[in-house]
């Protein structure tokens, strides 16, 4: 088993996928290392890659005119980093900055979209997983809107 295959198999995000699907994904994936402080992508850039964090912490930041950026969320080991590559116009909506040294699996977005469209079973499995991540982050955002810790005052 290749190292990439083993990494993909270990990720909870991909658990339950058939071996042949894992093999397709492993063939598309490559591991990257990102130094602490580096921007992995910037708001408005073309979303050319899909990333899954293997280790380290990444901050999703909203740049603000004349002020320090605000961190809206951090993602960590095993988390998917962004889904702007999935839907047109395929542009990132936040900055992603490595808070620590980061290793990640990266997939070329165009290739991944092609695989998703040509193999509907894999496409369904991927969309189900991304849908779950989106729902979970939407719920987390709603909780923050409710001011979870302040009794709403």
């Amino acid at each position, binding site marked *: 088993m290749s190292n990439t295959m083993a990494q993909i198999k270990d990720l909870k995000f991909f658990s339950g996928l058939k071996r042949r699907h894992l093999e397709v994904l492993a063939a598309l994936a490559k591991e990257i290392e990102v130094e602490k402080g580096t921007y992995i992508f910037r708001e408005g850039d073309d979303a050319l890659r899909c990333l899954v964090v293997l280790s380290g*912490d990444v*901050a999703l930041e909203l740049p603000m005119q004349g002020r*320090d*950026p*605000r*961190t*809206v*969320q*951090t993602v*960590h*080991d*095993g988390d998917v980093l962004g889904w702007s590559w999935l839907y047109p116009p395929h542009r990132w909506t936040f900055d992603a900055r490595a*808070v620590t040294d980061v290793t990640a699996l990266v997939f070329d977005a165009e290739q991944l979209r092609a695989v998703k469209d040509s193999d509907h079973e894999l496409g369904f499995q991927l969309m189900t997983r991304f849908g779950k991540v989106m729902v979970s982050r939407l719920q*987390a955002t709603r*909780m*923050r809107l*409710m*001011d*979870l*810790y*302040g*009794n*709403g*005052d």
Partner: protein
Amino acid sequence: MATATELSIPQLLDPMPCVVRAVNRETHDTITLEVEPAEPYHFEPGQITMVYKHGVGEIPISISSDPDRHDRISQTVRGVGAVSKAIIASHPGDVLGIRGPFGVGWPIDQAEGGDVAIIGGGIGLAPLRSIVYRVLNRRDRFGAVVILVGARTPKDIVFAEELREWGSRFDIDVNVTVDTADRGWHGPVGVVTNMIPRAPWDSSKVTAFVCGPEVMMRFTARALREDDVPMDKVYVTMERNMQCGVGLCGHCQWGSHFVCREGPVFRYDTVAELFRIRGV
């Protein structure tokens, strides 16, 4: 000192004078008062007191100090109403009246032999702080000890210094997350429930103690369930309008429960339905 169950009703209604010895500012609107009781004070983590500010009024406040120390007690108070604002304006040397401790505390003994999850939101960390002291005083009786804390911003984190101190120990895992932050914050950003799936406990052996606003506890319980933590191992503490403290006045009634007597700590599965009833 006699326990609440050994005292008569008139004794339970009579505040004990306690001298404020220290006032520690936690956040812009929250302080921790360290008070010296008139006689040695015994309580269990999670129990509650009624704190009386002379000439202003009385409010329920949980105890946030080390339960194995009997000469001082700490009370963490957020100034939101007339009485709490008067209490947080206290100075060393002032005298407050304290009744209690009342109610049922956290069943820490039941967590012995297993892992411990202590999950607090905002000022909800206050009634959990006593658990941390108790667990650390008897550290060899527990497996993994994990503290998860959520706050609005880094400035809203209570007991920040102690959290750093606990986090530097090798026998306890401390994770603090905030809703939003600037570059000065190096920790996680997101809600406290985000940290549950990657928490280093054994879901089949963990006992979870949760405190925060009710909506936070409800979502935390849901996240724990999704993490395969049995709901009969999850405990929450309820805040209600306690007044007499002894189950007579009914102000703190929550469904069929009197929070001051049967609570404030409840096993989640015994009250989960009440969380779903609007207006209770």
